[in-house]
């Protein structure tokens, strides 16, 4: 009897103290898309290139960071509303729109953002023979004129997992090698030995990609990650 009495009091309290204000809707809009140039996604290093979403309707807005995945796509779950999309100055291996892009979200939205990369990697071929992964490629200059940036180095990165980039330490690469000669960007060659680590299990595949570092640009531009059977 006593238990029932307590239960009754507790449930009455709960009913009385709850109010309309407690009821928030969950974020309902999914904003997805890719960073594009001429219909082609721009691959970058994972979580290192970002843009910001601002909500100008709020009094003290704070930016929401959206990181770009390594294949050049992004996705973010947000509340419906008006947003301004801005790139930070100097962010990314590309020339991004300098003005804020206004977007209105209600439900889902898919939007590709057009940017101009400084360079792009073309004619990429990977090959494997006896513990060495080799790559040949060319690097095309896309952005010319005053904004053009020169290539500082071209690097072949390999990793055991599909997350491959040159800057995340052992998480992003187990080995990497710079192209020794970058005087002729239309024909580049690199090869890297696969390190043997007795503590890690054997696997018969590797992931690889090429990165290009431009002088004066912090983020590198990459090729898409490729799985190479050994």
């Amino acid at each position, binding site marked *: 009897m006593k238990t029932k009495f307590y239960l009754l009091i507790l449930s009455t309290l709960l009913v009385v103290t709850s109010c309309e204000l407690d009821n928030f809707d969950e974020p309902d809009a999914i904003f997805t898309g890719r960073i594009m140039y001429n219909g082609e996604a721009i691959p970058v290093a994972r979580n290192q290139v970002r843009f910001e979403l601002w909500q100008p309707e709020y009094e*003290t807005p704070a930016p929401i960071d959206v990181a770009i995945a390594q294949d050049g796509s992004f996705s973010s779950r947000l509340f419906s509303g008006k947003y301004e999309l801005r790139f930070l100055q*100097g962010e990314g291996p590309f020339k991004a729109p300098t003005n804020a892009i206004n977007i209105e979200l209600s439900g889902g939205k898919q939007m590709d953002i057009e940017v101009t990369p400084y360079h792009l990697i073309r004619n990429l071929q990977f090959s494997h023979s006896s513990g060495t992964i080799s790559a040949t490629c060319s690097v095309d200059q896309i952005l010319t004129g005053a904004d053009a940036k020169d290539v500082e180095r071209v690097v072949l990165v390999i990793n055991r997992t599909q997350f491959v980039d*040159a*800057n995340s*330490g*052992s998480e992003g690469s187990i080995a990497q090698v710079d192209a020794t000669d970058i005087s002729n960007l239309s024909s580049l060659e690199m090869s890297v030995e696969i390190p043997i680590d007795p503590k890690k299990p054997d696997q018969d595949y590797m992931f690889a990609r090429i990165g290009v570092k431009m002088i*004066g640009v912090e983020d590198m531009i990459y090729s898409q990650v490729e799985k190479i059977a050994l």
Partner: protein
Amino acid sequence: MKKYIFLAGIITMLAWSCTKNDEEFLDRPPSSLLTQDQIFKDPSAVLSVLGDLYNRYEDFGRLDDWASVAQFNVAYWSEVGRYQEFQNDGWGYGSWGIWDYGYIREINLFLERCEEATELEESLKARFLAEGRFLRASYYFEMVKRMGGVPLILESETYDFSGDASYLQHPRETEAAIYDFVIGEADALKDILPTDVNSKSRATKGAVLAMKARAALYAGSIAKYGTTTPQVSLPGNEVGIPASMADGYYTQALSAAEAIINGDAGAYGLYTKKPNLSENFEALFYDKANNPEAIFVEDYKVGAGKIHYFTGWNQPRYGAEEEEGGRINPSLQLVQSFEMLDGTYAPLENEVGGNPVYYDNIDDIFQNRDARLAGTVILPGSTFKSKPVDIWAGVVLADGSIVSGDSRGQEKTLPGATEQVQVVGFDGPIDGLEFTAQSGFYIRKYQDPNTGSGRRGTQSDVWFIRYRYGEVLLNAAEAAFELAQPDVAAGYLNELRARAGITVPLTGADVSFDKIAHERYVELAFEGLHFFDLKRWRLAHVVLDGNPISETEVTQNIGVASKRETQPYSIWPYRYHNPGDPNDGKWLYKTLRLSRITGADRFQLGNYYSEIGQDLINNNPKLVRNPNQ
């Protein structure tokens, strides 16, 4: 009847207890706090308030936080809980940020109240005020180094509870304006503060001049080298100093440094008390009696409650006063960058043409080097507190195989022998075993040679030198070099190099940017200054570029300022065991990268100036964010 007597007694008592002085009787001065009036008429009470403000002086490197002096891969950290620092790949944008306007406000309040004080002697009051201003300028200097331009608040402000705090929101000043403030305060204070070489822990003329020289040099180099990283700047110059201002700052730096060198601030000079040059360099940091080199210090005192445990954390593990020690292990890169006595660079010669070099004594490989090496680093074969260290990694057999142990001083039976012998030193190095000399070295600088300094119950009172004459010489040399006076620069560098035993003096033609950077790297190692050198020269993102260092690369380009510093390397001594061979019992060395070092540090452009937190920007929307974050 009894009841009435009691009643009468109580009534009488109550009647007597009332007097007309009741109010005075209850109005007692509090015994646990002092009022402002009481403080600001008593010089020793004012000094106590000032002491608290001195105590909150912000240092980047501190002896009570050992890791703070050994960052950026000049050393490996031999402590299990810290290995992760060598497994990650960089720093958050908020790292190293400071924003203590509470401290600024308290200094401002101190200055205002002290200014109003009427009963203090004028000369004393002027000194107190000048010390307060010195501390405030020091904190602004520390902030501008880390955050760039910040709001410059020079008087206490009070909220009026009107609901509108916007009048308390101040925008950021330009980076140059904060440096100008620091330099201007130094100029204003230098003739108020005493000229007293023996006053080390309070502000003196020497201290403000040294601060001015350092601040002006930093500002000048940001102006000059900032052009290499145009991305690290803001349109309003809250970050970044126009290149045209470089020469002006360098000129100020040189004149302030030369004022100290010429004796304007008292008889400061290099510490040269001991005949053995390495011991001399070591003693420079712990000798607190008439030390002419220390200009401004954080002082400690054993038995008086102000102590630190730097020696306990870092003492050689073998023979340590506690069951710990050995945390800072200077890297191979640092050790090899100490020059040969003739002023040339050379890697530690452990191999010639792929064959190991055999040395008779374990420390022969380090011979004929800059005396500062043995004064900064505890090398294998040397001693600490008169006890020899026991750093050797194992025994190499005739076929090249290695016999070693996984506990300190382990014994094993060598092939062809019957008895067990020791196969690894009591100080290691053993890969992954904390407190052993995992890089092959321990730190010597700032270790306290007194008995008990490594005990938790006693600890150490070696002071931390914030400004010293040696750095003043380096600042003068760099400023002179940047002002195209290489001969002057060479003269100042040679004073330091002669003290280090280097026999061939530099000429003006030898002085280059790399030479200056190198001299600062070895002279000022583990003093908390290297980081700001990397930042102001805009080299941090070059030397910490996130790429691992290969074994062939590590011994190349010694003395080049842009050499990669993303990982510390080790060099381990081994004993050669091959009875009958002429090399039996001799020593050979192998370089390696420890297995726990899996990351490579990457300093991003957004790390140059620490992030101003979103909470601060929400409170004060006038604050602009730092670049690249």
